[in-house]
């Protein structure tokens, strides 16, 4: 069920990534910062998709708490899992960009950087928190409460950062002194769509693997077969 349309989605993702990379390399103009600004088309879409993924994880957690359906918990888990991976990409590409532009790998008094690090570290605690609870129902419930609370914190944190005074980090989509020129905006939007498609594809792939694993366990129980020596982690499953 979860594998339906995965092939089409994968092809669309590869095509979108290829178009985005081509636009970044051959179409997007160089601005005052020079060639290093090309990292923008990777770093910013990654961060936007990661933050939206955290919020999506919170929304699925609300659905789980309302309905008690474990499927929503698995969706929430996978959304957060993929967003944490994207978060790693955001932090590394951001550090590389910072080193190239400002001469430092990290600037501790910059609200944008520190706030993203706080969000990332908060979600990094999701795994030990989740796996510390053995009872599956309790684990799913507590993890959903965490996902809802943290998911609500993400937009609040974003707003707080926008209101704070920036020291060095640019506010690209500022409303006062204009936004991006057309060609840069087009490249950025295509990159954003490509990153979002990649995220959706990976979420679907992860859910497909979890579904297959869950169905395999059900089959093993139905056949009364001996347990295999596979993973003993109490990860959420979908059937």
């Amino acid at each position, binding site marked *: 069920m979860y594998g339906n349309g995965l092939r089409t989605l994968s092809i669309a993702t590869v095509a979108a990534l*290829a178009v985005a*990379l*081509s636009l970044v*390399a*051959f179409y997007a103009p160089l601005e005052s910062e*020079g*060639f*290093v600004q*090309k*990292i923008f088309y*990777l*770093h910013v879409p*990654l961060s936007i998709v990661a933050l939206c993924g955290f919020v999506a994880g919170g929304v699925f957690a609300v659905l789980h708490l309302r309905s008690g359906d474990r499927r929503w918990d698995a969706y929430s888990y996978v959304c957060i899992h993929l967003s944490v*991976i994207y978060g*790693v*990409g955001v932090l*590394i*590409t951001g550090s*590389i*960009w910072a*080193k*190239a532009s400002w001469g430092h790998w990290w600037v501790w008094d910059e609200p944008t950087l520190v706030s993203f690090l706080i969000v990332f570290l908060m979600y990094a605690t999701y795994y030990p928190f989740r796996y510390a609870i053995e009872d599956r129902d309790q684990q799913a419930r507590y993890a959903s409460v965490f996902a809802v609370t943290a998911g609500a914190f993400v937009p609040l944190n974003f707003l707080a950062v926008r209101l704070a005074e920036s020291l060095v980090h640019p506010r690209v989509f500022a409303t006062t002194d204009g936004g991006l020129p057309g060609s840069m905006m087009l490249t950025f939007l295509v990159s954003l769509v490509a990153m979002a498609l*990649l995220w959706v594809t*990976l979420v679907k*792939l*992860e859910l497909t*693997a979890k579904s*297959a*694993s869950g169905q*395999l366990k059900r*089959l*093993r129980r139905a*056949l009364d*077969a*001996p347990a*295999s020596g*596979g*993973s003993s982690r109490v990860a959420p499953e979908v059937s």
Partner: protein
Amino acid sequence: MLLAIAKTLPSDGTSKYVAAAYIVFVVLLVVYVAIMAAKLARIERELRELAGFAEHRANGEGAAEADTAADSPAPAEAEEVTSNG
């Protein structure tokens, strides 16, 4: 395409940072896909084991049924035994 992109890189020091950022992204993606491939390989192996177990059990049950049928007398023989007394 990658070769064409490589030709667009300027010779100044900033190009290495841009290349590094994009390489980090590709490496992350490759590592993730490799982990997923390992997971799917494990599922496939477990499925094969389970199929083997199910087949073995089905064969065992079939053999047991055949043994039971061989041990019990045929209807005609049973009738004969009863009539003979």
